[in-house]
């Protein structure tokens, strides 16, 4: 039995961690490739509704977002609780939409300007009045391809 007890006094060797950086780098690259940078900080409450017949928006670079909802708690003292429009990082009014559309178009290639999808991220509890106003403004600016941002669900309830 002495064969197994040859180095009885020696302490256990440390676990080899040489491959740990490789593993972490692999994870890092995975996340770098699959995700995109967060561009805006939400200043409005944004719980989007559910729907069953949804489609995926293919090219993220060709999507511009318009957020509508009640300002979040920290902004309520200044902006109140009525639903507001958020474009990029600031609260805006519907009159600013036309300019916003022009600016977003300028950022894109000339060929892709007509392919922009305008994604409306509207809070569930918002009333249609403001949404309709935004839609009318988009129509005026000839931004016709819109998307009502919704999440997937299997069945809608009453």
């Amino acid at each position, binding site marked *: 039995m002495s064969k197994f007890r040859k180095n009885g006094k020696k302490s256990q060797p440390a676990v080899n*961690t*040489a491959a*740990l*950086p490789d593993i*972490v*780098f692999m*994870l*890092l690259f995975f*996340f*770098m490739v*699959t*995700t*995109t*940078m*967060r561009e805006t900080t939400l200043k409005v409450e944004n719980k989007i*509704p*559910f*729907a*069953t*017949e*949804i*489609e*995926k*928006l293919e090219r*993220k670079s060709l*999507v511009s*977002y318009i957020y509508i909802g009640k300002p979040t708690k920290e902004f309520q003292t200044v902006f109140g609780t009525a639903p507001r429009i958020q474009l990029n990082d600031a609260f805006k009014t519907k009159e600013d939409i036309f300019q916003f559309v022009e600016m977003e178009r300028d950022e894109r290639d000339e060929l892709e300007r007509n392919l922009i*999808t305008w*994604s409306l991220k*509207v*809070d*569930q*509890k*918002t*009333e*249609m*009045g403001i*949404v*309709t106003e935004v*839609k009318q403004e*988009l*129509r*005026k600016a*000839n*931004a*016709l*391809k*819109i*998307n*009502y*941002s*919704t*999440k*997937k669900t299997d069945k*809608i*309830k*009453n």
Partner: protein
Amino acid sequence: MAKREIQEINAGSMADIAFLLLIFFLVTTTMDTDTGLIRRLPPPPDPDRIDEFDVKKRNVFEVLVNANNQILAKGDYIQVTELRAKVKDFIKSDPNNPTLPEFKEEEIEGLGLFPVSKQIISLQNDNGTSYDMYIKVQNELVGAYNELRNEFAQQKFGKTYQELQQQAGASEKAERQLDAVKKVYPQRISEAEPKKIGGAE
């Protein structure tokens, strides 16, 4: 002089650096792709031209949603879950029923002359309607079209509508079939300007 050994660089903190980077990317990026109901708005109205559309009453399916989120579909007060079946019956139509939409023979590639119903869905909501309800109604209307297209695609081409959509980019045949299905059941949802009718204000 004794030969000095080249010292190995200590790579022990490499993992820490990589972790730091990893956490930075986890925090600053998002993974979710946007999904939703894609619609096309009508072009801005031309002030010089006034279009007068004369549409027969039997061809129009009117959906009204009021400020209390109640739905009136072709004169009946219904729940949102009942809407899809009702709209489907209407779109499909029936040549023997004079209250359902008329048919018009149309030339469709791959199918020849085909009777297409002249249906139009007219949606009108109130300024006080909740966005949630609006999306539900929109969803049911699109769902009705999708189901009919699906049934038709399966019956005619042996493929579901989704399969045709997926294959359309790669195969020309699928693209032609998809076009035909879309022409048989064209999506005609017209949105009237909202009114301030009834309910909260």
